[in-house]
C-alpha cells in the first residue's frame, strides 16, 4: 500500500523537477502545452507564471525571490489602499459627514461603493460551478478585483473582469489542493512549498490576473472615462454612441477583414449578408477570453495555448476565426436568428484541441498543419486571395490604422507566410492584372530598399572593426557600399512606396521619433525625414512588443533609418 501511495507523490516532485529544467525558451514545454498536456498538471499555476513572465524559465533559483517580490507587491498594494478612517487623528476635520473629496471618510464610502459593485458581479460568477459559491473564494476575488481597480485606475473594475479572474483562482486553488494532498504523504522540497504556498492564494492569483489583464486590456478600454473617487467611469456628458471608438470593436473588425475574409470568404460574406457584425457575439468572446464558450476544463487548455503562444495573446484573434470555421456549416445554412443563436450559444465542441490546432495553423501555416479531424475547412478561392492581397498591400483604411488593436501584435507573423502565396498567385495572373503587377513591383522595391539599408548598416558596423591593413576586407567593404548605393538609386528613381508593415515588424522598426539617420541624407531628404510618421505611435509600440528578440541600440538605429528610407518618395 505504501508504494501505491508514494508513486503519485514521487511523480509530483518529478513534475516539479522537469519544470525547473525547462530552458529559457520553454521549447519542449510549449510543445506539450500546444498538445493539451497540461490537463493533469499539478503545477499549472506555476507554468502560467512562467509563460506570463512572472517567473523566469530556466532559472529556478530565482523563483523564490520572484515569487516573494510579487507577493510583497500585492500585500503592500492592499495595505496602501485600505482606508481606515477610524484611525484618523483629527475627527473634527475629517468625519463621515465631511463633503471634502479628499476626506478619508469620503474615500472610505467610495471604496465601499466600488466593492459593492464588484461583489454584485462576483456572486454571479459561473453559476453552474460550485467552487465559485464558496464565500472564501468570493471574498478573495473581490479583494483582487478591488486592488486591480485601484492599481489601474483608468481600467477600474468592469463587468467581465471577474470571469477572467475566475479560472485563475480556480487553477491556483487546484494547485494548492494538489500540494496539500501530497504534503500529507511525503516531505516536500522547500522550493515547492515556497512557490506553491496555499497561504498566498490571493497574492499569487493577483500576479496572474494582472498579467492576463495587461494582455487583454484593449478589450476593456472605454473612451472618455473621467476620474471619481469610486473609480474611472464614462463621462456623463459623452452622450455620443462612442461605439466606433471602442478598441474591442476595432479588433473584431480587424479579425473579420484581415483574418476571416481571406481564410473563409464564404462565411465572411454570409455574415455580412445577414448583417451580423462580429461585435454582437465577439465582445463577450474577447472580453472573457472565451470563458462562456467552453466548459472550464477545456477553457483552461485553451488558455494554456494562448499563454504559451506569446505574451501578447495574438492567438486569440485566430481562435475567433477557428471557432467560426468550426461551425461554418451550421452558420452558412442558418438564417439570421439561427445564425445569431449559434454564435451566442456556441455549440459544445467535441475536442478543444481541434480549435487550438486550427488557430495555430491559421496563424502559422508553414509550421502547423491543418488538423486532420477538422472537418469544416473552408476552401479559399482565388478571388478571396485577391481580396487578401488588396487588404494587405493596398492603403489601409483609416479605421484599421487608427485601431490596430493592442492584441494584434504581429502583422509580420500573419503576413509573411501568406506573402509567398501571393507571389505565386500574382505570378499566374500577372499579365491580366495590372493592379497586381504594380503592387508586386512595390513589394519588390520595398525589398530592395530594405536590402540597401541593411547593407549600409552592415557596412558601418564592419568598417569600424576591420583591420585597416586588410586589403581584401576593404575591397569587400567597398563592394558593399557600392551595392548599397546602387540599390538605393534604384529605389529613389522609382515611384513612392507605401510602408509595408510586415517589413517593419520583421526588421524591428520601432520608434517613429526619428533620430538623425546614421547616414546623412541630402537636404531634400532631410525635410521628408522630419515629417511625422504616418503610423500612430501605439502601432509602432505594438510592433516593438511583438518581437521576441531583445532589441539592440544598433538595430534601432538601423530600423529607423530603414523606416525613413522606406518613406522617401
Amino acid at each position, binding site marked *: 500500500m505504501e508504494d501505491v501511495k508514494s508513486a503519485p507523490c514521487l511523480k509530483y516532485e518529478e513534475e516539479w523537477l522537469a519544470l525547473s529544467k525547462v530552458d529559457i525558451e520553454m521549447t519542449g514545454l510549449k510543445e506539450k502545452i500546444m498538445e493539451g498536456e497540461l490537463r493533469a498538471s499539478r503545477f499549472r499555476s506555476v507554468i502560467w507564471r512562467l509563460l506570463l513572465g512572472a517567473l523566469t524559465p530556466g532559472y529556478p533559483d530565482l523563483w523564490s525571490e520572484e515569487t516573494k517580490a510579487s507577493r510583497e507587491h500585492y500585500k503592500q498594494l492592499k495595505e496602501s489602499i485600505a482606508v481606515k478612517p477610524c484611525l484618523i487623528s483629527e475627527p473634527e476635520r475629517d468625519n463621515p459627514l465631511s463633503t471634502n473629496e479628499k476626506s478619508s471618510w469620503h474615500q472610505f464610502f467610495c471604496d465601499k461603493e466600488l466593492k459593492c459593485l464588484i461583489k454584485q458581479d462576483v456572486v*454571479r460568477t459561473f*453559476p453552474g460551478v460550485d467552487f465559485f459559491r464558496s464565500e472564501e473564494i468570493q471574498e478573495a476575488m473581490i479583494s483582487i478585483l478591488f486592488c486591480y481597480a485601484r492599481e489601474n485606475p483608468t481600467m477600474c473594475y468592469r463587468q*467581465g473582469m471577474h470571469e477572467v479572474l475566475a479560472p485563475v483562482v480556480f487553477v491556483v486553488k487546484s494547485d494548492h489542493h494538489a500540494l496539500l494532498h501530497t504534503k500529507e504523504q511525503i516531505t516536500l522540497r522547500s522550493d515547492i512549498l515556497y512557490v506553491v504556498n496555499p497561504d498566498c492564494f490571493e497574492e499569487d492569483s493577483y500576479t496572474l490576473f494582472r498579467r492576463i489583464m495587461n494582455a487583454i486590456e484593449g478589450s476593456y478600454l472605454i473612451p472618455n472615462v473621467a476620474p471619481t473617487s469610486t473609480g474611472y467611469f464614462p463621462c456623463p456628458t459623452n452622450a455620443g454612441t462612442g461605439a466606433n471608438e471602442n478598441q474591442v470593436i476595432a479588433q473584431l473588425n480587424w479579425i473579420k477583414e484581415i483574418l476571416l475574409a481571406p481564410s473563409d470568404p464564404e462565411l465572411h460574406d454570409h455574415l455580412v449578408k445577414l448583417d451580423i457584425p462580429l461585435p454582437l*457575439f465577439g465582445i463577450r468572446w474577447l472580453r472573457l477570453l472565451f470563458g462562456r464558450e467552453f466548459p472550464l476544463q477545456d477553457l483552461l487548455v485553451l488558455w494554456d495555448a494562448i499563454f504559451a503562444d506569446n505574451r501578447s495573446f495574438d492567438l486569440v484573434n485566430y481562435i475567433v476565426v477557428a471557432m467560426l470555421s468550426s461551425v461554418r456549416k451550421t452558420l452558412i445554412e442558418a438564417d439570421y436568428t439561427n445564425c445569431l443563436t449559434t454564435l451566442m450559444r456556441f455549440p459544445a465542441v467535441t475536442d478543444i484541441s481541434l480549435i487550438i490546432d486550427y488557430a495555430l495553423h491559421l496563424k502559422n501555416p508553414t509550421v502547423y498543419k491543418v488538423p486532420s479531424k477538422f472537418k469544416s475547412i473552408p476552401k479559399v478561392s482565388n478571388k478571396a486571395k485577391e481580396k487578401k492581397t488588396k487588404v494587405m498591400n493596398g492603403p489601409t483604411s483609416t479605421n484599421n490604422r487608427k485601431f490596430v488593436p493592442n492584441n494584434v501584435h504581429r502583422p509580420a507573423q500573419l503576413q509573411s507566410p501568406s506573402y509567398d502565396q501571393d507571389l505565386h498567385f500574382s505570378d499566374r495572373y500577372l499579365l491580366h492584372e495590372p493592379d497586381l503587377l504594380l503592387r508586386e513591383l512595390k513589394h519588390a522595391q520595398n525589398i530592395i530598399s530594405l536590402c540597401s539599408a541593411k547593407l549600409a548598416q552592415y557596412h558601418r558596423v564592419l568598417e569600424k572593426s576591420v583591420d585597416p591593413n586588410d586589403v581584401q576586407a576593404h575591397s569587400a567593404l567597398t563592394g558593399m557600399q557600392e551595392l548599397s548605393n546602387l540599390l538605393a538609386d534604384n529605389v529613389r528613381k522609382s515611384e513612392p512606396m507605401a510602408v509595408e508593415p510586415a517589413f517593419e515588424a520583421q526588421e524591428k522598426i520601432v520608434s517613429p521619433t526619428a533620430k538623425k539617420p546614421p547616414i546623412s541624407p541630402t537636404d531634400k531628404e532631410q525635410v521628408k525625414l522630419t515629417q511625422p510618421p504616418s503610423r500612430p505611435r501605439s502601432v509602432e509600440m505594438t510592433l516593438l512588443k511583438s518581437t521576441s528578440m531583445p532589441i539592440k541600440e544598433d538595430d534601432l538605429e538601423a530600423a529607423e533609418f530603414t523606416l525613413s528610407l522606406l518613406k522617401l518618395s
Partner: protein
Amino acid sequence: MSYAYMFKYIIIGDTGVGKSCLLLQFTDKRFQPVHDLTIGVEFGARLVDIEDKQIKLQIWDTAGQEAFRSITRSYYRGAAGALLVYDITRRETFNHLTTWLDDARQHSSSNMVIILIGNKNDLVSRREVNAEEGEAFAREHGLIFMETSAKTASNVEEAFINTAKEIYGKIREGVFDISNEANGIKLGVQQSPSANSLSPTTKSFYQNTGCC
C-alpha cells in the same frame, strides 16, 4: 417560420434587475436563480399572436453596467419596443430610471413603445418601491407599466405581448413608418417560410404591395 411582422425589442435597466431572467422566462419558460452576467448583448426570439397575426419578437438583452453603455446604445436604434426594468427590492434601480429613459429616448426612434417593468414582485417582503410609485413614474413619462416576476412568470408573457399590441396598434394607426427599418419593424413573408426577413425579396414584396 412565417410571420406577418417582426418587432425588435431591447431590454434595458441596471445590473441585476432581472433583464436576462425576464428574457429567459419569456423565450424558454424557465427561471435561473443565478444568471450569468450579460456581457455585451444577448439575443432571444419568439413568435406571438396578436389579433390573429403571427409576430416575431426579436429581443436584445443588454448589459447593465454604465461603462459599456456606449455599446448598448447602438442597439437602441432600430428598436420598436423597449422594456425598461427596475428591481422593486432595490430603490437605487428605480432612481436610475430617468437616466435610462433619457438615454433610450435620445438614441431611438421617437415612436418606440416603452414599457416600465418593476421586476421581482415575488419578493414582497423586501419591497422598497411601491407599485404606485412605478405607476406614477410611467404615467408621467407616457409609459406602459407592469410589475412582474421572472421567477414565478407572473405578468412576463403579458409584458412582452402588451408591448407588441401597442406597437401593432401604432402600425394600424399609421404612426409607424414600417418602410423604414430603423423603426424596428420588418414585414415578414407569410407565404415563404424559408425566406428570412432581410432578403431582397422581402423588401421588393413590401414595395409592391404597399402597407398592409
